[in-house]
Each structure stands twice: as C-alpha cells, then as structure tokens.
C-alpha cells in the first residue's frame, strides 16, 4: 500500500499505535481513507519514475481497450433495433446510428417460466440484500469473539474456521438441499430464506477471516479503556467495534453483495422453482430458449449487469480494499 496509513484509530493512538505492519496493517490500510484511492494513484518519486515507458503505456491502453470492447459492443447493441442487430455487427452502428429502447421493453415484458422479467429483478434484490447483510453481521460477532474474548481453544477454533475456506461449495450442495427439504426445515415452500442461509454459510469462513484481521488489529488499549470504563463485551462491540469497523464491513459487504447478485448455482439449487430465482437464472433460461433473439439477450444482460456496475463504479475503492484485506502485505 503506497499511501501513508492514517486512520481515526491511529490518529488517536499516536505514535505507538501507528506502527502496525504485516497483513493486519494491510487490512487497516486497505479499508481506510475512502476519500482517496491510494492503491490506484501513482505516487510521486524521483529515480524510480521511469519504470514505465511510453511503449508500456500504449500496451496498457491497448489491453484496457481490448478488455472493454466486448462489454461496449453489448451496450451498443442493446440500443439497436432488432433487424439491425441480426443483420450487421454493432460496429456498423457508427455509420448508421439508430437508437431504440424496444429491446429493453421487450425484456421487461418477456416472461420466463411464466413470470415477467421484472419479478426476477425483484427476486435478485430480495436475495442479495439479506444475503450480503446477514453473514457480515454474524461474522462480525464471531470475529470479535476470536479477537477480544478469552475462551478455551480460541486460536484452534479460529484456525479450523479459516481452514473451512477450502471446502468447495459443491461439496455441501446435496446434503444441504436434502436438509432444507426435510421436515426439519419448516419453510419448505419458500426458497428464498434457504438461499440466504446457503449464501451465509458459504460466506462465513472468508468473512470471519477478513473481519478478524481488521477487528483484531484495532488498538487493544481502546478496548481495555472501555472495559475499565465499565463496558461489557456487548457494549464494546456495539458502541466501539462496530462503528470503527464500518469501512471493513462495507468493503466485505460489497464483495459479498456482488458475489450473491452474480450467483447462479446456489440460487438454482436452493431456490426451488422459477418463482424464487434471481435474474441470472432468467438470463440463462433466455440463452437456452431464445438463443437467437439477440435483441433480448443484449438488453437482458445489461439489465442484470446494471446494479453490480453501479455498485462497482460508485464503491470501487471500497471494493478493491475489501479484496486486499488480509491478502496483501502492507
């Protein structure tokens, strides 16, 4: 991390608390200072400057363009009339521009599995928001305990939790599904809570790991000061740790949001029936059944992409830091 680490925590702690190195420093550094994007900003330097040449930057921009062309083509196509989409490439749009919103209308009126596309959009939101929020909070509680409570076998249990990151989600699909469909699980009819639960389970190891890195690196003296002031663990957690962890919670939350929003497998397995399915499902269905109706597919793909793109573009810095948390030495 190139930026100087300056967090509210460090600032209070002064000289001594500022020196957190290693992975934990990475987490702290990573999620703070949302006002400036340290990892995306070149830092000024004298000698080391000429690492990149003109040739280098041409290559970078070429790759960037190459990376953008497919998405750009889809975006352009989604605004072209059906007949044009099917008879000429989107690059002809510039010689013969004609714009229509018919494709989007078509998608929104289109029915998949007997229900309109908009239903799937709503389902996506219903699935994603709790699917991102629940595991983050559960993980935050656990991360606090692993950092600041004393109990038997604490470190070993934590290692065990982290080790569970290894389990591929496929490994648990069938038994979980059987469990959800058993009498033990009361709400068989509605698949959405099952999807939440499944996403929460799969998110848990990584979320606990990242949050423990962050929460554990809060200055211990602040926690101790609160204990001396008479605060219980619950009060410390709610009034001090949670407010201080907002950047970490947000970045991991965004990460989880994108993951749940873009998921197909978990929803397909646990959702039961089309009526609980997110947009990814509707898209796959459309690809299968309307593979040649490109006007619908292009617009549909863009509709599914719009929310993550907005989230991504507006919160990109947070998101990058969420990814970095715990993985990069500072």
């Amino acid at each position, binding site marked *: 991390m190139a930026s100087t680490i300056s967090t509210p925590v460090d600032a209070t702690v002064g000289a001594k608390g500022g020196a957190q190195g290693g992975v934990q420093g990475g987490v702290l550094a990573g999620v703070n200072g949302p006002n400036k994007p340290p990892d995306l900003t070149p830092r000024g330097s004298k000698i080391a400057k000429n690492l990149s040449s003109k040739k280098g930057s041409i290559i970078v921009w070429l*790759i960037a363009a190459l990376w953008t062309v497919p998405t750009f083509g*889809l975006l352009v196509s989604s605004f072209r009339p059906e007949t044009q989409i099917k008879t000429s490439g989107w690059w002809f749009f510039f010689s013969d521009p004609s714009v229509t919103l018919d494709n989007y209308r078509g998608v929104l009126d289109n029915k998949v599995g007997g229900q309109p596309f908009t239903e799937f959009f709503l389902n996506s939101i219903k699935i994603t928001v709790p699917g991102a929020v629940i595991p983050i909070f559960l993980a935050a509680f656990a991360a606090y305990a692993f950092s600041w409570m004393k109990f038997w076998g604490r470190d070993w249990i934590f290692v065990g939790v982290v080790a569970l990151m290894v389990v591929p989600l496929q490994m648990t699909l069938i038994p979980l599904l059987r469990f959800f469909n058993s009498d033990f699980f009361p709400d068989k009819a509605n698949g959405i809570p099952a999807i939440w639960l499944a996403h929460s389970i799969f998110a848990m190891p990584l979320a606990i790991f990242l949050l423990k890195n962050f929460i554990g690196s809060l200055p211990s003296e602040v926690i101790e000061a609160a204990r001396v002031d008479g605060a219980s663990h619950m009060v410390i957690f709610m009034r001090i740790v949670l407010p201080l962890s907002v950047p970490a919670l947000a970045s991991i939350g965004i990460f989880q949001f994108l993951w749940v929003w873009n998921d197909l497998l978990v929803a397909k*397995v646990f959702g039961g029936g089309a009526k609980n399915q997110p947009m990814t499902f509707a898209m796959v269905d459309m690809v299968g059944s309307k593979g040649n109706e490109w006007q619908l597919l292009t617009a549909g793909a863009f509709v599914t992409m719009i929310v993550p793109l907005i989230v991504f573009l507006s919160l990109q810095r947070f998101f990058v830091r969420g990814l970095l948390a715990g993985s990069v030495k500072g």
Partner: protein
Amino acid sequence: MIEIFKTFVTVALGLGAFLAVMVGLYWLASQLPEPWRDRARVMVFVGPALVLLVGGLILPSLYTGRLSLFTGPNANKWYGFGNFRELFTDSDNLIVLRNTVWWVILVTLASTVIGITIARLADRMRGEPYAKALIFLPTAISMVGAGVIWNFVYATKGNDPDKQYGLLTWLWLKAEPILPGKQDPHYWLQDREFFGFHSSFLPGLNTLFMIVVIVWIQAGFATVVISAAMKGVPDDLVEAAKIDGATDRQSFFRIVLPYVKGTIITVATTTLIAVLKVFDIVQTMGKGGQFATSTLANDMYQRSFPLSQPGYGAALAVILFVAVVPIVYVNAKNQRNIREGR
C-alpha cells in the same frame, strides 16, 4: 418499487431484531452464575457462526463423502469406490478431467502473468487508475452476463462476412486477404478440436474460447491486487538497486518481483480455486457442457441434478475437495513463511 422498499424495510427490521436478540441473549448469559457466565457470553458471540459452519459445511461435507460411495437416483445403493472408478476410466469423464486441468493451468497462468505485466507497465503511468478500472470492470459482471457478452463476440451467422454480428467471426472472415487459405465461417463454441487437431490430451478450441472469458474476468483482480502490492515496495529499495547499477529490468525481476512474491501466490491460489468452481460459463456458453466442454464443477451439477446421479456428483465434489486442499495448504505455509520473515 413497493416490493423493493418492502424488502429493505424487512431487512432493516430483521437486522434490528437480530441485534436485539443478540443483546437479549447476552443479557441472559450475564445472569448465569460464574463458571457458566463467561462461556455463555462467548457462545452468544461465536455460537451462530459456529452452528452455520458445523451444520452447513462440516456435516454436509462428511455426508457428501459418504454419499460418494453410493449409487442410484437416490444414492441408496452401496457402490464402494465404483463412482471413482468410473470417474477415472470412462472416456467422457476423462474429458471432463482433462478440461478441468487445462482450465486451471491456463486461467491461473494467464491471469497472473497479465496481472503482473499490467501492474508493471501501468505503474506511475498517466491515467493509470482509469486504465486499471477498465480492466477491473469485468470482475463486477456475473459469469452469466459475461457468457452473454462473449456469446455475442463469438456468434456466427451464415457465410456472408458483412452479415456477421459476432465480432470475432467478422474479423476472421475479413482476415482472408491477410491469412493464407480460405476462411470458413466458424462455429467457435462447437469446435471440440484443437486447431483441427484431434487429441485426447488437448482441450477443444471451444474450451479455449471459454477460458478466454474467465481470463477476461480474473485478470482485473490479479492486476489490482498485484499492483497494490508493488506500490508497497519501498522506493529506497528500488533506488538503492539502481544506484548499485541495476537496470529497470533487473531491479524489477530481482527486487520488486521477489518482494511481492507472497501476493502473487495468493492471487494465483485465489484464481485457481475460483476456476475449479467454474460453472456458470459452461452453463451459458457450452450449453451445460455439450461439445466436450464440461468441467468438474459443471459435471457435478449435471450429474447431481438433471441426471439424478447424486452419488456420482458427490464423488466429483470429493475430487474437487481433494484437489483444493494441498493448494491451500501450500499457500498457507507460504504466507506464514513470509510473515515470519521468509
């Protein structure tokens, strides 16, 4: 709109209720007599997460392990290692394994190398944040969306070059004057041969074209993480090397790369694990694994659900697990070495 609003209100209420319940439980725990009080408080904090992990990951994994030894549509007929035997002998299954291996190797290698290259070339260049944001963008797109985007690139329609709407096909047909021979209209995603060469070890062209898509998605992740790590290399280190007479190139390979080694390994591991789980792309682009494009994760879904062979599906999951464990182990060990000062 009302629906969305309702969802948000429900979530907010649910979250409030959840926190209230936690506080209540904690209060109850605090009423207990001493030896139990502390333990109960700890349980309030870690209990919910542990229940999810044990009930949602550990027990199901064990169950899956058991399931892999059974066969039949309900997986109730004892089959011993039959599923595994099939998995490693049947030629169709071997194709699945072969594809998976190629996926893993090519995607991991390509994403990491592209990530390193861009991170290096873009360092301190003008407009660096924007270029990197563009490359990072596909990370936000679902694999399903990516599938549609690239289906559109690969689409082929008839022979007339001017009627093509797939960018790749159009370029291919237009390349006739440049490339030798006559360019046929090509159905990229159905070509199971390796550039016209049939081999049981090499992946089909269609698989390669799908691999391109995942590289497209993953490279941005690699770039951003590696780039951040490179910016963490102390300036003095590079400057000292220069004063010692190292060229740009030497200081990059001798100083910068070793310094960020740990990050690169982490990125590679993360990518690798993500690739092992690739499912959506094969569903959207390979029509669920037809034309010999299936992978482990996809096959696992197909067998367990549409084909009703849960025992076989479980065996595939076990293989996946076994493949991941050593990778994570090596990575964890590496991380520890680095943290402890190499």
